């Protein structure tokens, strides 16, 4: 458990005495998954503010639903809540990007958090080329890549989030990466490598 998480536990545990099990469960099962929830939310919404709102709604629902959670596979449980929350929000507000393939928007510009000697000019050029190639993919392929490569989900978890068979995730993911590889190779970055 991280130090930050422990801080949350302490603060909540002091003030919330009526339902210590729920607070403990929230801290144990939900808080450690905040990063994954956010990355998946961003993969779905492709908008940072929307992603944060979606995670917040998911947290509220997760807290309320903790009593019915059996403690098994918390990530899968949370991703189901997140997906259902997204569907509810989508119905209430506006068409979601994943459901509207004709709606192509510019992705929010990436903000790399990488630093240090490894992140050199070559990596920066590679990142730019990969990003450009990534943006040329279909939205379905982008979503699969966002969930697996950026969100760190397994194929099955990504399939559950997208509501498609695992084979579909694999197909979108593999074809998308293959296309990125071809495009980046076309830029000469992988000369002699492909």
């Amino acid at each position: 458990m991280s130090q930050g998480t422990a801080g949350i536990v302490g603060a909540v545990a002091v003030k919330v005495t009526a339902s210590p099990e729920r607070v403990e469960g929230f801290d144990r099962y939900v808080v450690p998954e905040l990063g994954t929830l956010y990355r998946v939310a961003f993969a779905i919404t492709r908008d940072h503010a929307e992603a944060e709102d979606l995670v917040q709604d998911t947290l509220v629902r997760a807290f309320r639903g903790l009593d019915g959670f059996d403690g098994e596979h918390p990530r899968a449980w949370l991703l189901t809540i997140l997906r259902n929350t997204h569907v509810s929000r989508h119905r209430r507000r506006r068409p979601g990007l994943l459901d509207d393939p004709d709606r192509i928007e510019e992705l929010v510009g990436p903000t790399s958090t990488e630093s240090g000697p490894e992140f050199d000019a070559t990596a920066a050029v590679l990142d730019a080329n990969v990003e450009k190639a990534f943006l040329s993919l279909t939205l379905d392929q982008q979503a699969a890549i966002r969930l697996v490569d950026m969100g760190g989900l397994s194929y099955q978890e990504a399939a559950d989030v997208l509501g498609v068979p695992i084979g579909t995730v694999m197909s979108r993911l593999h074809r998308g990466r293959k296309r990125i590889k071809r495009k980046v190779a076309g830029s000469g970055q992988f000369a002699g490598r492909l």
Partner: protein
Amino acid sequence: MGFRTRREAKIGCMEVALVLQAYLDGEVDETVARRVGAHLEICRRCGMKADTYRLIKAALARGGTGWDDLTRRRLQDFAHRVGLDQDSGT
């Protein structure tokens, strides 16, 4: 046993191409992973292809998910408030 291990290690480039990305994603079973790993060690072409995909995956992972310290803190604060608000509201 050693003979079987060597036999298992024999896998062709075509077969590797079919499972390479799943292998790099950690989505193949142990036997397949062992066979692919052995092939990548001896096949320069497939090894370079695997390295290329690793570079692409790493670049994608660095891409803008927006998960930074500020976002983390905001969501942790919110998670904290969820507990307080929900409890006081019930």
